[in-house]
């Protein structure tokens, strides 16, 4: 589903990704781990299409399409979802309104009928219950006054509502307490599907105890230096990132 080949990107004058390659197929759960500054967030932003990041060489193909040619909203409508590391607040626009607009934008793109308010609310209530969320938050401004944990739960909630084909979750687990973590993990696991690929970007092993990945990749200094299965994550936890840096130099 996702083919990244030898990707190089810069932001301003700084090179961040230096020859990153990655292959993700439908039905798979990948974890990407790495130290700060390795380029984890850059990767997710580049896939989402943030124009601060310039791709200097390499390619990104999504279901055979050149993803880099599509605008961010087009990528989203094609089924790419990014769970932001720092979800932004949008006061005055309530969560329900944004989500309904997003769902309908996607449906229009696919030539489907739009959902009406009633359908939307029913669906939303269902998904919120599964995530242990208070339904009143639908009326609140997007992420307005949300705690870190609530923001991350909101990202997962949006994911469950939008049903993407490719979900990239950028440090969705950071700042969560055990209860929130378990709720989030539950949400992610419920999204597992032979037609869907999930890429979890994380610092810590913790989330991966609940969301078992099929593949683990280690990102260091702008590229993937090692790939393996879930045991790799455990090794990393034990040996630390210096172990990886050693590998990168090799």
């Amino acid at each position, binding site marked *: 589903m996702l083919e990244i080949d030898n990707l190089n990107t810069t932001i301003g004058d700084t090179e961040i990704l230096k020859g990153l390659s990655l292959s993700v197929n439908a039905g798979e759960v990948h974890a990407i781990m790495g130290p700060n500054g390795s380029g984890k967030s850059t990767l997710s932003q580049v896939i*989402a299409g943030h124009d601060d990041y310039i791709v200097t060489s390499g390619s990104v193909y999504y279901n055979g399409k050149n993803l880099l040619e599509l605008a961010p909203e087009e990528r*989203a409508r094609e089924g790419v979802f990014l769970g932001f590391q720092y979800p932004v*607040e949008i006061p005055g626009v309530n969560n329900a309104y*944004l989500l309904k607009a997003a769902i309908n934008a996607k449906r229009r793109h696919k030539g489907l009928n739009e959902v009406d308010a009633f359908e939307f609310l029913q669906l939303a209530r269902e998904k919120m219950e599964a995530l242990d969320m208070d339904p009143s938050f639908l009326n609140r401004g997007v992420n307005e006054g949300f705690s870190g944990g609530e923001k991350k739960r909101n990202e997962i909630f949006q994911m469950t509502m939008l049903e993407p084909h490719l979900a990239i979750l950028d440090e969705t687990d950071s700042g969560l307490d055990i209860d929130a973590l378990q709720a989030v993990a539950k949400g992610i696991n419920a999204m597992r599907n032979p037609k869907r690929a999930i890429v979890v970007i994380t610092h810590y092993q913790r989330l991966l105890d609940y969301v078992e990945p099929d593949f683990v990749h280690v990102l260091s200094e702008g590229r993937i230096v090692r790939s393996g299965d879930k045991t790799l994550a455990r090794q990393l936890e034990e040996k630390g990132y210096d172990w990886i840096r050693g590998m990168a130099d090799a």
Partner: protein
Amino acid sequence: MLEGSIKPMSTEPKYIESLVNRRYEHGFITDIDSDNLPPGLNEDIVRAISKKKNEPKFMLEWRLKAYRHWLTMQEPTWAHVHYPKIDYQSISYFSAPKSDEERPKSLDEVDPKLLETYEKLGIPLHEHAKLAGVAVDAVFDSVSVATTFKEKLSEAGVIFCPFSEAVTNHPELVRKYLGSVVPYRDNFFATLNSAVFSDGSFVYIPKGVRCPMELSTYFRINAANTGQFERTLIIADEGSHVSYLEGCTAPMRDENQLHAAVVELIALKDAEIKYSTVQNWYPGDENGIGGIYNFVTKRGDCRGNNSKISWTQVETGSAITWKYPSCVLRGENSVGEFYSVAVVNNMQQADTGTKMIHIGRNTRSTIVSKGISVGHAQNVYRGLVKVMPQAKDVRNHTQCDSLLIGKDCGAHTFPYMEVKNPTAKVEHEATTSKISENQLFYCRQRGISEEDAVNMIVNGFCKDVFKQLPMEFAVEAQNLLNVSLEGAVG
């Protein structure tokens, strides 16, 4: 063709980054024979206007007093707006469509070209007015053309007619109330208006009557160099209630056009007036050339105890907007409200706000002002909350928010608070914010286009004002906002 023209606003040698390709929807000129007076202003012109309207003596005398006083006045320059000097002698002060000679008694008698104009402007006087139950008094180039629903309103005892008609048919009401809220000496533009006002709306709601429908009027400036000087007078007698909608459109022109209207509202004991405006005058092109100058005096007098006057406006047009819809809170327990969304784009300028003058005891005022600046535009909020010494237990709350879109626009706030009674509670809150790139990216990553994202965020910003608008207007207002913001985020 008329000689002379107001010189267009000079462009600054700055490169304007944000591209605005908005084609002003209502940009066209009706090809109708207008009965214009030659340009220029002198006593003869004032007399001619009065004569054309068959006005009684008292009206002519009032006009002349105003005109003579105007000659002694200086044009004010304190506002935070810049415009080339207006040549008052190059404006024609009267323009009417030919079919004015015999007033049409029904829509069937109206010049079909005019009706076509209204269709284009989205004012189908026929079905829409009937379905929506809105009585439309269409003012076309200084003369009111059609008034519908007169019968229905007269059943309720409501008088809703062109101002010129009121002068002839209800002179006692006009004499009693005209100039009692905005005296003819009030300010330069109001004085000019008092001398040369063309037409407008007159509304009188009798005691205890709740006006059965929303009253509405449309304005339109057509002929070049024609100053539009509307005069509107609304009187809500004791215990009555009325909601009035004012919506404007104007065609695309190259010369600037002066619009100096005066609106007076009087609410007697226990009465309530709700006055809503959606203003869409031609704002000038992206270089600031050719837009309307909207220098308006609007004031409401809460004359009776427990009365209430509420101003709601959505202003997206005009090259320059200079207006302060205000409330004089005379009656005890009276309430004044001001809800405003003002959008300026490209080279538009706005210096607007409100004045709440608290004279009576236990009076309250609420001000919610939302300013949106885009492009190189400058938006100024100027507000006065004045509490007189005898006004005990006054409460005011002001919320003044500015939204800046882009790097080159500006928002300025000049709040004035003159509180002369120690029991008053006056609160002022102000915020300034931007639409951040991160907010836009977030929306786009959810599949929402950038334009829709801007609209969503701006609508969220304006929510508190929009919810004050009557339903009919709220949708128009939102669409208007969306159109004004096209190309805002470059």
